């Protein structure tokens, strides 16, 4: 069972939900795919960490062989190469590492070398494995890091903490998920972005349910959206200044409060039941 937690909007409580679900499960794996800003490890405090580097390829030129024919410059759709007499310039940050320039070079003046773009740390918290991807600052895409991170998904139970938004990183994150939890705030911003990720789960053909977070008295546009779309509401967490404080200090609610431990145990059961049902359909 692989469960992705996403939201579109940032700061709605994806990590709060993910780490507390993983902590009450006490088994399986937690995967932090927010590689630009990973925070789950601050809560789960894993030990026995093994670190690996994630690399991408980049072209390098041997100017003794390059005759300035510009075949590579003309072929690169990303404009990551430029030639000025006597020098072939390669812009690593723009390069998508597709390998075309190296393949096309008629003089074999281009070769590829590895370039580190991020790190993966895999550790443990009791029987739960904790996996964190971190992109190096200045890099433009974390997609290869997420791909590498998710190679060790646990089929029994994996909680996948998604980055915000609805772009390429989120697509990669939910590609392997069996079920998606959409965490939504009670604002028009929250509802707007809930609609975005809901649409994304439909495009990707992933079953999904909503967790309403920071719920206040009064109208909840996210709840209205969920009801209108007959999206399953998995649970509702009222705004609680206690939660805000504990969470700001990276404390696990399920360890600090019996009430929240019960809530997340029930949520986990609900989600697993829903995902099992969806798989049978």
């Amino acid at each position, binding site marked *: 069972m692989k469960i992705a937690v996403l939201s*579109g*909007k*940032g*700061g*709605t409580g994806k*990590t709060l939900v993910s780490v507390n679900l993983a902590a009450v499960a006490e088994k399986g794996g937690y995967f932090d795919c*927010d590689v*630009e*800003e990973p*925070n789950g490890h*601050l809560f789960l405090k894993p030990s026995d960490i093994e670190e690996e580097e994630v690399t991408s390829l980049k072209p390098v030129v041997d100017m003794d062989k390059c005759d300035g024919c510009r075949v590579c410059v003309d*072929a690169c*759709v*990303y404009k990551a190469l430029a030639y000025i007499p006597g020098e072939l310039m390669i812009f690593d*940050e723009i390069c*998508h*590492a*597709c*390998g*075309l320039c190296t*393949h*096309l070079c008629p003089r074999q003046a281009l070769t590829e070398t590895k370039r580190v773009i991020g790190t993966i740390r895999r550790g443990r918290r009791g029987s739960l494995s904790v996996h964190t991807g971190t*992109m190096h*600052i*200045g*890099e*433009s*895409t*974390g997609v290869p890091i997420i791909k590498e991170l998710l190679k060790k998904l646990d089929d029994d139970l994996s909680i996948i903490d998604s*980055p*915000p*938004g*609805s*772009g*390429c990183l989120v*697509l990669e994150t939910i590609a392997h998920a069996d079920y998606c939890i959409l965490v939504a*705030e*009670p*604002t*028009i*911003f929250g509802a*707007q*972005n809930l609609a*975005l990720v809901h*649409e*994304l789960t439909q*495009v990707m053909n992933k079953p999904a349910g909503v967790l309403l977070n*920071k719920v*206040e008295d*009064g*109208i909840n*546009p996210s709840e209205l959206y969920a009801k209108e779309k007959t999206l399953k509401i998995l649970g509702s967490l009222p*705004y609680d*200044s206690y939660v*805000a*404080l504990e*969470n*700001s*200090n*990276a404390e696990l609610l399920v360890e600090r409060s019996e009430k929240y431990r019960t809530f997340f145990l029930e949520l986990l059961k609900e989600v697993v039941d829903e995902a099992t049902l969806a798989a049978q359909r």
Partner: protein
Amino acid sequence: MKQLLLLSGKGGTGKTTVATGLIQLSQAKAYADCDVDAPNLHLVLGTFDNHTTKPYYDLPKAVIDPNRCTECGLCYQVCRFDAIAENPYRVIPHLCEGCTFCTHVCPAGAIALEETVAGTIELHTRGDETFSTATLKMGSGTTGLLVTEVKKQIKDKAEFAILDGSPGIGCPVIASLTGVDLVLMVAEPSLSGISDLKRVIQNARQLQVPICVIVNKSDVNEELTERIRHYCAKEALPFLGTIPYDREAVAAINSGQSLIERGGPASEAIQEIYHKVMKELEAL
């Protein structure tokens, strides 16, 4: 034109709420929503008189003609983006990055490139105000280029522009940072928020953009607010103030009212910050 960008690293710290306040207080004539992944600024700016939209084209993506494909598998072998599926060979559009490697190696000429609409760029005007925003089509990836297009639409439309940014530090953030005069970091007093703030500050520094910092929801954790203040002092980053958490802000946002119109402590704090930000910009 001077451009102020709001960033935060972590999502949900209040970038859009603060941006809305600053747009109203400064009576900015040009502003843009650079969070093309999850745009929200359009929800709180009222109605505009005129709207123009245009499609945003992604790099052309590969398409395999099954009638000409000889099933040799070369395209599958060379694709680094896992964008080609087997049996029969076909392109998975959302994974294709348009590099054209497959079209170069296909011996049967069976792979063509097709232009794909990846989103919509919108321009809204009201009197002498210009607002640029965009929406990304579901399943599209190249957000950085779209951000650049959004920024182009307001370039030199006014003396001063405000740009609402996206969370994170990746390509949309880099694209939004390029060429701006000052970035206002809207921080949040949490360990997660501090970790994220430090990363996005490094990002802005790499691109040599001047930085100033505020803390939103400061009273949720006063101790961590102090920690951010000390960090800024140590790093010689201007710390321009704090905004207390306003529970009623939720109701205000939902009714389409701005925090400034509503008044109260959060509104007053934003007004104070506004004057300090303008001073920082003038001093550049």
